[in-house]
Protein backbone atom coordinates (compact mmCIF):
# COMPACT_ATOMS: atom_id res chain seq x y z
CA UNK A 1 0.00 0.00 0.00
CA UNK A 2 2.71 2.51 0.81
CA UNK A 3 4.94 3.54 -2.01
CA UNK A 4 8.18 3.78 -0.11
CA UNK A 5 10.43 4.62 -2.98
CA UNK A 6 8.66 7.90 -3.62
CA UNK A 7 9.15 10.27 -0.78
CA UNK A 8 11.87 10.70 1.76
CA UNK A 9 9.10 11.88 4.03
CA UNK A 10 7.29 8.57 3.67
CA UNK A 11 10.33 6.76 4.93
CA UNK A 12 10.57 8.99 7.93
CA UNK A 13 7.00 8.45 9.00
CA UNK A 14 6.48 5.91 11.68
CA UNK A 15 4.17 3.00 11.53
CA UNK A 16 2.05 4.67 14.11
CA UNK A 17 -0.72 2.19 14.60
CA UNK A 18 1.40 -0.89 14.31
CA UNK A 19 -0.66 -2.14 11.45
CA UNK A 20 1.84 -1.95 8.63
CA UNK A 21 0.28 1.18 7.21
CA UNK A 22 1.82 4.50 8.18
CA UNK A 23 -0.37 7.56 8.38
CA UNK A 24 0.62 8.94 5.02
CA UNK A 25 0.09 5.57 3.42
CA UNK A 26 -3.27 5.29 5.06
CA UNK A 27 -4.29 8.66 3.70
CA UNK A 28 -3.04 7.73 0.25
CA UNK A 29 -5.28 4.70 0.39
CA UNK A 30 -8.13 6.90 1.34
CA UNK A 31 -7.42 9.33 -1.45
CA UNK A 32 -7.48 6.47 -3.94
CA UNK A 33 -10.58 5.31 -2.17
CA UNK A 34 -12.46 8.38 -3.32
CA UNK A 35 -14.45 5.77 -5.12
CA UNK A 36 -15.73 4.64 -1.77
CA UNK A 37 -13.53 1.83 -0.56
CA UNK A 38 -11.83 1.74 2.80
CA UNK A 39 -9.05 -0.54 3.89
CA UNK A 40 -8.79 -1.47 7.51
CA UNK A 41 -6.46 -3.78 9.28
CA UNK A 42 -8.44 -6.19 11.32
CA UNK A 43 -6.37 -8.64 13.33
CA UNK A 44 -3.44 -8.11 10.99
CA UNK A 45 -5.43 -9.05 7.89
CA UNK A 46 -6.41 -6.28 5.53
CA UNK A 47 -10.09 -6.26 4.78
CA UNK A 48 -11.92 -3.93 2.49
CA UNK A 49 -15.26 -2.44 3.05
CA UNK A 50 -17.16 -0.36 0.55
CA UNK A 51 -18.51 2.89 1.88
CA UNK A 52 -21.63 2.23 -0.06
CA UNK A 53 -22.51 -0.93 1.77
CA UNK A 54 -22.77 -1.79 5.40
CA UNK A 55 -23.88 -5.33 5.95
CA UNK A 56 -24.14 -6.82 9.39
CA UNK A 57 -20.72 -8.49 9.34
CA UNK A 58 -18.89 -5.40 8.23
CA UNK A 59 -20.81 -3.07 10.47
CA UNK A 60 -18.70 -0.35 11.99
CA UNK A 61 -17.22 -0.97 15.38
CA UNK A 62 -19.11 0.91 18.06
CA UNK A 63 -16.38 3.49 18.40
CA UNK A 64 -16.29 4.32 14.72
CA UNK A 65 -18.14 7.34 13.44
CA UNK A 66 -18.16 9.72 10.56
CA UNK A 67 -18.95 13.37 9.99
CA UNK A 68 -19.09 15.66 7.00
CA UNK A 69 -17.21 18.91 6.47
CA UNK A 70 -18.87 21.52 4.28
CA UNK A 71 -17.54 25.01 3.73
CA UNK A 72 -17.92 28.42 2.16
CA UNK A 73 -21.61 28.36 1.32
CA UNK A 74 -21.56 32.16 0.78
CA UNK A 75 -25.35 32.41 0.87
CA UNK A 76 -26.21 35.73 -0.78
CA UNK A 77 -23.54 35.57 -3.49
CA UNK A 78 -25.17 35.99 -6.91
CA UNK A 79 -22.49 36.76 -9.47
CA UNK A 80 -21.71 34.79 -12.67
CA UNK A 81 -19.43 32.28 -10.94
CA UNK A 82 -22.62 30.85 -9.41
CA UNK A 83 -25.91 32.76 -9.62
CA UNK A 84 -27.65 30.34 -7.24
CA UNK A 85 -25.48 29.33 -4.30
CA UNK A 86 -28.55 28.27 -2.32
CA UNK A 87 -29.32 25.62 -4.92
CA UNK A 88 -25.79 24.18 -4.84
CA UNK A 89 -25.91 24.19 -1.04
CA UNK A 90 -29.13 22.20 -1.28
CA UNK A 91 -27.40 19.76 -3.63
CA UNK A 92 -24.67 19.33 -1.01
CA UNK A 93 -27.26 18.56 1.67
CA UNK A 94 -29.05 16.13 -0.64
CA UNK A 95 -25.73 14.38 -1.20
CA UNK A 96 -25.15 14.11 2.53
CA UNK A 97 -28.67 12.76 3.02
CA UNK A 98 -28.07 10.14 0.33
CA UNK A 99 -24.96 8.77 2.03
CA UNK A 100 -25.48 5.17 3.12
CA UNK A 101 -23.93 5.84 6.52
CA UNK A 102 -25.56 8.79 8.25
CA UNK A 103 -22.90 11.16 9.56
CA UNK A 104 -22.96 11.87 13.28
CA UNK A 105 -22.73 15.60 12.60
CA UNK A 106 -21.73 18.26 10.09
CA UNK A 107 -18.95 20.80 10.48
CA UNK A 108 -19.24 24.05 8.51
CA UNK A 109 -15.82 25.71 8.28
CA UNK A 110 -17.09 29.23 7.69
CA UNK A 111 -18.24 31.88 5.21
CA UNK A 112 -21.78 30.76 5.85
CA UNK A 113 -23.02 34.04 4.33
CA UNK A 114 -21.74 36.47 1.75
CA UNK A 115 -22.48 39.74 3.53
CA UNK A 116 -23.48 38.75 7.10
CA UNK A 117 -27.11 39.64 6.30
CA UNK A 118 -29.86 38.18 8.51
CA UNK A 119 -31.72 36.97 5.42
CA UNK A 120 -28.63 35.08 4.30
CA UNK A 121 -28.23 33.31 7.63
CA UNK A 122 -31.97 32.57 7.60
CA UNK A 123 -31.76 30.97 4.17
CA UNK A 124 -28.81 28.83 5.24
CA UNK A 125 -30.67 27.67 8.33
CA UNK A 126 -33.63 26.68 6.17
CA UNK A 127 -31.46 24.53 3.92
CA UNK A 128 -29.63 22.94 6.85
CA UNK A 129 -32.93 22.03 8.50
CA UNK A 130 -33.32 19.37 5.82
CA UNK A 131 -30.01 17.67 6.63
CA UNK A 132 -30.13 14.13 7.99
CA UNK A 133 -27.51 15.06 10.55
CA UNK A 134 -29.18 17.39 13.01
CA UNK A 135 -26.06 18.41 14.90
CA UNK A 136 -24.11 21.05 13.03
CA UNK A 137 -20.96 22.76 14.28
CA UNK A 138 -19.79 26.08 12.85
CA UNK A 139 -16.83 28.39 12.80
CA UNK A 140 -17.16 31.84 11.19
CA UNK A 141 -15.44 33.05 8.05
CA UNK A 142 -14.51 36.67 7.40
CA UNK A 143 -17.75 37.10 5.44
CA UNK A 144 -19.71 36.31 8.60
CA UNK A 145 -18.10 39.16 10.58
CA UNK A 146 -18.91 42.02 8.26
CA UNK A 147 -21.52 44.23 9.86
CA UNK A 148 -21.11 43.97 13.58
CA UNK A 149 -17.82 42.29 14.38
CA UNK A 150 -19.57 38.96 14.24
CA UNK A 151 -22.18 39.75 16.88
CA UNK A 152 -24.97 38.28 14.81
CA UNK A 153 -22.96 35.17 14.02
CA UNK A 154 -22.37 34.64 17.72
CA UNK A 155 -26.04 35.07 18.55
CA UNK A 156 -27.07 32.51 15.98
CA UNK A 157 -24.25 29.97 16.10
CA UNK A 158 -21.98 30.89 18.97
CA UNK A 159 -23.86 29.61 21.98
CA UNK A 160 -21.41 28.30 24.55
CA UNK A 161 -18.39 29.59 22.68
CA UNK A 162 -15.70 31.93 23.95
CA UNK A 163 -14.30 35.16 22.57
CA UNK A 164 -15.00 35.47 18.85
CA UNK A 165 -16.54 31.98 18.81
CA UNK A 166 -13.98 29.33 19.73
CA UNK A 167 -14.95 26.13 21.54
CA UNK A 168 -14.36 22.40 21.83
CA UNK A 169 -16.36 19.20 21.99
CA UNK A 170 -15.70 15.49 22.18
CA UNK A 171 -17.12 12.68 20.14
CA UNK A 172 -16.38 9.07 21.02
CA UNK A 173 -12.94 9.87 22.33
CA UNK A 174 -11.94 12.29 19.55
CA UNK A 175 -11.34 15.86 20.72
CA UNK A 176 -12.58 18.60 18.38
CA UNK A 177 -11.56 22.25 18.62
CA UNK A 178 -13.26 25.00 16.63
CA UNK A 179 -10.96 28.00 16.20
CA UNK A 180 -11.66 31.52 14.90
CA UNK A 181 -8.93 33.12 12.84
CA UNK A 182 -10.99 35.82 11.08
CA UNK A 183 -11.43 38.37 13.87
CA UNK A 184 -9.34 41.51 14.43
CA UNK A 185 -7.34 41.04 11.29
CA UNK A 186 -4.35 43.36 11.03
CA UNK A 187 -3.48 45.41 7.98
CA UNK A 188 -1.14 43.54 5.68
CA UNK A 189 -1.59 40.28 7.57
CA UNK A 190 -3.27 36.95 7.00
CA UNK A 191 -5.56 35.06 9.36
CA UNK A 192 -5.00 35.53 13.07
CA UNK A 193 -5.85 33.50 16.18
CA UNK A 194 -4.78 36.07 18.76
CA UNK A 195 -3.21 35.79 22.16
CA UNK A 196 -6.35 35.05 24.17
CA UNK A 197 -7.44 32.17 21.96
CA UNK A 198 -3.94 30.68 21.86
CA UNK A 199 -3.77 30.71 25.64
CA UNK A 200 -7.15 29.02 25.81
CA UNK A 201 -6.04 26.38 23.29
CA UNK A 202 -2.82 25.62 25.14
CA UNK A 203 -4.74 25.23 28.35
CA UNK A 204 -7.41 23.08 26.71
CA UNK A 205 -4.90 20.59 25.32
CA UNK A 206 -2.70 20.43 28.38
CA UNK A 207 -3.05 17.16 30.24
CA UNK A 208 -4.86 15.31 27.49
CA UNK A 209 -3.42 11.92 26.67
CA UNK A 210 -1.23 12.00 23.57
CA UNK A 211 -3.25 9.12 22.15
CA UNK A 212 -6.37 11.29 21.97
CA UNK A 213 -7.08 12.00 18.31
CA UNK A 214 -7.35 15.77 17.81
CA UNK A 215 -9.30 17.60 15.14
CA UNK A 216 -8.75 21.35 14.76
CA UNK A 217 -11.08 23.24 12.47
CA UNK A 218 -10.95 26.90 11.45
CA UNK A 219 -11.91 28.94 8.40
CA UNK A 220 -8.60 30.23 7.06
CA UNK A 221 -5.93 27.55 6.54
CA UNK A 222 -3.70 27.00 9.55
CA UNK A 223 -0.68 26.61 7.32
CA UNK A 224 0.68 29.03 4.75
CA UNK A 225 -0.56 28.03 1.34
CA UNK A 226 -0.07 31.35 -0.46
CA UNK A 227 0.93 34.41 1.50
CA UNK A 228 0.25 36.99 -1.25
CA UNK A 229 -3.41 36.05 -1.19
CA UNK A 230 -3.62 35.89 2.59
CA UNK A 231 -4.00 32.11 2.52
CA UNK A 232 -2.49 31.33 5.91
CA UNK A 233 -2.61 32.26 9.59
CA UNK A 234 0.09 34.50 11.04
CA UNK A 235 0.20 32.82 14.45
CA UNK A 236 -0.75 29.26 13.56
CA UNK A 237 2.75 27.94 14.29
CA UNK A 238 2.12 28.52 17.96
CA UNK A 239 -1.18 26.65 17.83
CA UNK A 240 0.42 23.75 15.99
CA UNK A 241 3.17 23.55 18.60
CA UNK A 242 0.50 22.66 21.17
CA UNK A 243 -0.63 19.61 19.15
CA UNK A 244 2.81 18.33 18.21
CA UNK A 245 2.86 15.70 20.93
CA UNK A 246 -0.40 14.06 19.92
CA UNK A 247 -0.46 10.83 17.90
CA UNK A 248 -3.16 11.86 15.45
CA UNK A 249 -4.00 15.42 14.49
CA UNK A 250 -6.30 16.46 11.67
CA UNK A 251 -6.67 20.08 10.63
CA UNK A 252 -9.75 20.99 8.61
CA UNK A 253 -10.03 24.37 6.94
CA UNK A 254 -11.91 26.19 4.17
CA UNK A 255 -11.54 29.70 2.75
CA UNK A 256 -9.65 28.83 -0.44
CA UNK A 257 -12.50 27.00 -2.19
CA UNK A 258 -10.34 24.12 -3.37
CA UNK A 259 -8.75 21.00 -1.96
CA UNK A 260 -5.26 21.26 -0.60
CA UNK A 261 -3.72 18.59 1.58
CA UNK A 262 -0.48 18.13 3.41
CA UNK A 263 0.86 15.67 5.92
CA UNK A 264 3.56 16.82 8.28
CA UNK A 265 4.56 14.29 10.86
CA UNK A 266 1.41 13.23 12.63
CA UNK A 267 -0.57 16.24 11.48
CA UNK A 268 -2.77 16.03 8.40
CA UNK A 269 -4.02 19.27 6.88
CA UNK A 270 -7.00 19.47 4.59
CA UNK A 271 -8.95 22.31 2.97
CA UNK A 272 -12.40 21.68 1.56
CA UNK A 273 -14.12 22.67 -1.63
CA UNK A 274 -16.80 25.34 -1.40
CA UNK A 275 -20.46 24.59 -1.99
CA UNK A 276 -20.77 27.99 -3.74
CA UNK A 277 -17.96 28.74 -6.22
CA UNK A 278 -14.37 27.70 -6.92
CA UNK A 279 -11.30 29.90 -6.68
CA UNK A 280 -8.12 29.75 -8.73
CA UNK A 281 -5.07 27.78 -7.74
CA UNK A 282 -2.42 29.95 -6.05
CA UNK A 283 -0.83 32.45 -8.38
CA UNK A 284 -2.73 31.30 -11.47
CA UNK A 285 -4.96 34.37 -11.64
CA UNK A 286 -4.64 38.09 -10.87
CA UNK A 287 -6.53 37.60 -7.63
CA UNK A 288 -8.13 35.01 -5.37
CA UNK A 289 -11.73 35.89 -6.27
CA UNK A 290 -14.56 33.74 -7.62
CA UNK A 291 -13.54 31.71 -10.65
CA UNK A 292 -16.01 31.17 -13.43
CA UNK A 293 -16.13 27.71 -15.00
CA UNK A 294 -18.46 26.43 -17.74
CA UNK A 295 -21.91 25.81 -16.25
CA UNK A 296 -21.76 22.07 -16.85
CA UNK A 297 -18.54 21.84 -14.87
CA UNK A 298 -19.63 23.79 -11.80
CA UNK A 299 -20.83 20.74 -9.87
CA UNK A 300 -17.45 19.10 -10.34
CA UNK A 301 -15.54 21.87 -8.58
CA UNK A 302 -17.92 22.19 -5.65
CA UNK A 303 -18.11 19.46 -3.04
CA UNK A 304 -18.25 18.06 0.47
CA UNK A 305 -15.80 16.11 2.58
CA UNK A 306 -16.60 12.85 4.33
CA UNK A 307 -14.43 12.15 7.37
CA UNK A 308 -14.39 8.69 8.85
CA UNK A 309 -12.93 7.85 12.18
CA UNK A 310 -11.92 4.25 12.63
CA UNK A 311 -11.30 3.43 16.23
CA UNK A 312 -9.08 0.48 15.43
CA UNK A 313 -6.49 2.73 13.85
CA UNK A 314 -7.39 5.90 15.73
CA UNK A 315 -7.09 7.55 12.35
CA UNK A 316 -9.35 9.83 10.44
CA UNK A 317 -9.87 9.21 6.76
CA UNK A 318 -10.71 12.29 4.79
CA UNK A 319 -12.49 11.74 1.48
CA UNK A 320 -13.61 14.59 -0.75
CA UNK A 321 -16.34 14.20 -3.31
CA UNK A 322 -17.73 16.71 -5.78
CA UNK A 323 -21.40 17.61 -5.96
CA UNK A 324 -21.44 16.08 -9.43
CA UNK A 325 -21.47 12.71 -7.71
CA UNK A 326 -24.66 13.53 -5.85
CA UNK A 327 -26.46 10.46 -4.59
CA UNK A 328 -23.63 7.98 -4.75
CA UNK A 329 -20.39 7.91 -2.83
CA UNK A 330 -19.22 4.74 -4.55
CA UNK A 331 -18.73 6.26 -7.95
CA UNK A 332 -16.96 9.21 -9.43
CA UNK A 333 -13.40 10.32 -9.42
CA UNK A 334 -13.01 11.40 -5.83
CA UNK A 335 -10.01 13.52 -5.21
CA UNK A 336 -6.39 12.79 -4.60
CA UNK A 337 -3.93 14.26 -2.17
CA UNK A 338 -1.79 17.17 -3.13
CA UNK A 339 -4.49 19.54 -4.27
CA UNK A 340 -4.68 20.96 -7.80
Amino acid at each position, binding site marked *: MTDKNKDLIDQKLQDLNNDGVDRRGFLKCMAWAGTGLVWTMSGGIPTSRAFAKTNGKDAAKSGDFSFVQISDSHIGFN*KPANPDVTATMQTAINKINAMPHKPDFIIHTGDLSQ*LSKPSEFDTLDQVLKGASAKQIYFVPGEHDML*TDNGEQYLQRYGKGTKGSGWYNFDQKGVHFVGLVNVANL*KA*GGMGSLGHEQLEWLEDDLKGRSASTPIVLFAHIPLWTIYQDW*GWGTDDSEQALSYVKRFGSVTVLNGHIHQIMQKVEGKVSFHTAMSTAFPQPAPGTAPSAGPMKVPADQLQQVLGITDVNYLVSGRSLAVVDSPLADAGSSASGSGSGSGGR
Partner: protein
Amino acid sequence: MKRNSFWVASFTASVIIAIVLLVAGSPTVTANDQPSAANAEVKIDNFVFGPQTITVPVGATVTWTNKDDIPHTSVSTDGVFKSKVLDTDEKFSYTFTKAGTYSYYCTIHPKMTGKVVVQ
Protein backbone atom coordinates in the same frame (compact mmCIF):
# COMPACT_ATOMS: atom_id res chain seq x y z
CA MET B 1 -7.11 111.15 -48.42
CA LYS B 2 -4.28 111.45 -46.05
CA ARG B 3 -6.40 112.52 -43.12
CA ASN B 4 -8.78 109.57 -43.70
CA SER B 5 -6.00 106.91 -43.86
CA PHE B 6 -4.40 108.23 -40.76
CA TRP B 7 -7.66 108.02 -38.92
CA VAL B 8 -8.27 104.42 -40.04
CA ALA B 9 -4.75 103.36 -39.09
CA SER B 10 -4.94 104.86 -35.64
CA PHE B 11 -8.38 103.38 -35.02
CA THR B 12 -7.14 99.94 -36.00
CA ALA B 13 -4.10 100.34 -33.77
CA SER B 14 -6.30 101.27 -30.80
CA VAL B 15 -8.52 98.31 -31.39
CA ILE B 16 -5.53 96.01 -31.53
CA ILE B 17 -4.07 97.48 -28.37
CA ALA B 18 -7.44 97.24 -26.65
CA ILE B 19 -7.76 93.56 -27.59
CA VAL B 20 -4.26 92.80 -26.34
CA LEU B 21 -4.97 94.50 -23.05
CA LEU B 22 -8.28 92.66 -22.70
CA VAL B 23 -6.77 89.26 -23.31
CA ALA B 24 -3.84 89.89 -21.01
CA GLY B 25 -6.06 90.94 -18.12
CA SER B 26 -8.70 88.19 -18.19
CA PRO B 27 -8.52 85.14 -15.85
CA THR B 28 -7.67 81.68 -17.24
CA VAL B 29 -10.77 79.68 -18.03
CA THR B 30 -10.43 75.90 -17.42
CA ALA B 31 -12.73 73.01 -18.28
CA ASN B 32 -13.52 72.08 -14.61
CA ASP B 33 -15.46 74.16 -12.18
CA GLN B 34 -13.24 73.10 -9.25
CA PRO B 35 -9.49 73.40 -8.91
CA SER B 36 -7.87 70.17 -10.25
CA ALA B 37 -6.95 67.24 -7.85
CA ALA B 38 -9.33 68.39 -5.12
CA ASN B 39 -11.19 65.09 -5.32
CA ALA B 40 -9.72 61.70 -6.06
CA GLU B 41 -10.98 58.27 -6.98
CA VAL B 42 -9.73 54.91 -5.81
CA LYS B 43 -10.93 51.91 -7.74
CA ILE B 44 -11.10 48.60 -5.91
CA ASP B 45 -10.67 45.65 -8.22
CA ASN B 46 -8.96 42.25 -8.17
CA PHE B 47 -8.25 42.61 -4.46
CA VAL B 48 -6.25 45.80 -5.07
CA PHE B 49 -6.76 49.48 -4.22
CA GLY B 50 -5.84 51.41 -7.33
CA PRO B 51 -3.87 53.60 -7.13
CA GLN B 52 -2.38 52.13 -3.96
CA THR B 53 -1.00 55.51 -2.88
CA ILE B 54 -2.72 58.78 -3.78
CA THR B 55 -1.79 62.32 -2.90
CA VAL B 56 -4.47 64.97 -2.42
CA PRO B 57 -4.66 68.53 -1.06
CA VAL B 58 -6.21 69.32 2.33
CA GLY B 59 -9.98 69.44 1.99
CA ALA B 60 -10.10 66.88 -0.80
CA THR B 61 -12.67 64.11 -0.90
CA VAL B 62 -11.54 60.62 -1.80
CA THR B 63 -14.14 58.21 -3.18
CA TRP B 64 -13.57 54.45 -3.19
CA THR B 65 -15.62 52.41 -5.67
CA ASN B 66 -15.71 48.63 -5.51
CA LYS B 67 -15.53 47.18 -9.00
CA ASP B 68 -14.65 43.71 -7.74
CA ASP B 69 -17.13 40.84 -7.61
CA ILE B 70 -16.44 40.35 -3.93
CA PRO B 71 -17.15 42.79 -1.07
CA HIS B 72 -14.37 44.92 0.41
CA THR B 73 -13.96 47.65 3.01
CA SER B 74 -11.75 50.70 3.33
CA VAL B 75 -10.73 51.21 6.94
CA SER B 76 -8.05 53.50 8.28
CA THR B 77 -5.48 51.79 10.50
CA ASP B 78 -5.65 54.75 12.92
CA GLY B 79 -9.41 54.85 13.33
CA VAL B 80 -9.80 57.98 11.19
CA PHE B 81 -12.32 56.59 8.72
CA LYS B 82 -14.22 53.38 8.25
CA SER B 83 -16.42 52.39 5.35
CA LYS B 84 -19.30 50.00 5.64
CA VAL B 85 -19.02 46.80 3.64
CA LEU B 86 -18.94 47.73 -0.04
CA ASP B 87 -20.51 45.24 -2.38
CA THR B 88 -19.93 45.50 -6.13
CA ASP B 89 -20.49 49.08 -7.42
CA GLU B 90 -20.95 50.54 -3.94
CA LYS B 91 -18.97 53.64 -2.96
CA PHE B 92 -17.51 55.24 0.11
CA SER B 93 -16.26 58.84 0.39
CA TYR B 94 -14.22 60.62 2.99
CA THR B 95 -13.11 64.26 3.10
CA PHE B 96 -9.62 64.81 4.49
CA THR B 97 -9.53 68.04 6.49
CA LYS B 98 -6.08 67.56 8.01
CA ALA B 99 -2.73 67.03 6.39
CA GLY B 100 -0.99 63.74 7.02
CA THR B 101 -0.44 60.20 5.78
CA TYR B 102 -3.40 57.87 6.21
CA SER B 103 -2.78 54.14 5.90
CA TYR B 104 -5.81 51.99 5.34
CA TYR B 105 -6.71 48.40 4.47
CA CYS B 106 -9.56 46.05 3.72
CA THR B 107 -10.68 44.44 6.98
CA ILE B 108 -12.04 41.43 5.10
CA HIS B 109 -8.87 40.83 3.08
CA PRO B 110 -6.16 42.48 5.16
CA LYS B 111 -3.43 41.87 2.59
CA MET B 112 -5.08 44.73 0.64
CA THR B 113 -3.51 47.97 1.81
CA GLY B 114 -3.43 51.55 0.58
CA LYS B 115 -2.33 55.04 1.54
CA VAL B 116 -3.74 58.55 1.23
CA VAL B 117 -1.18 61.36 1.50
CA VAL B 118 -2.82 64.67 2.31
CA GLN B 119 -0.70 67.78 1.88
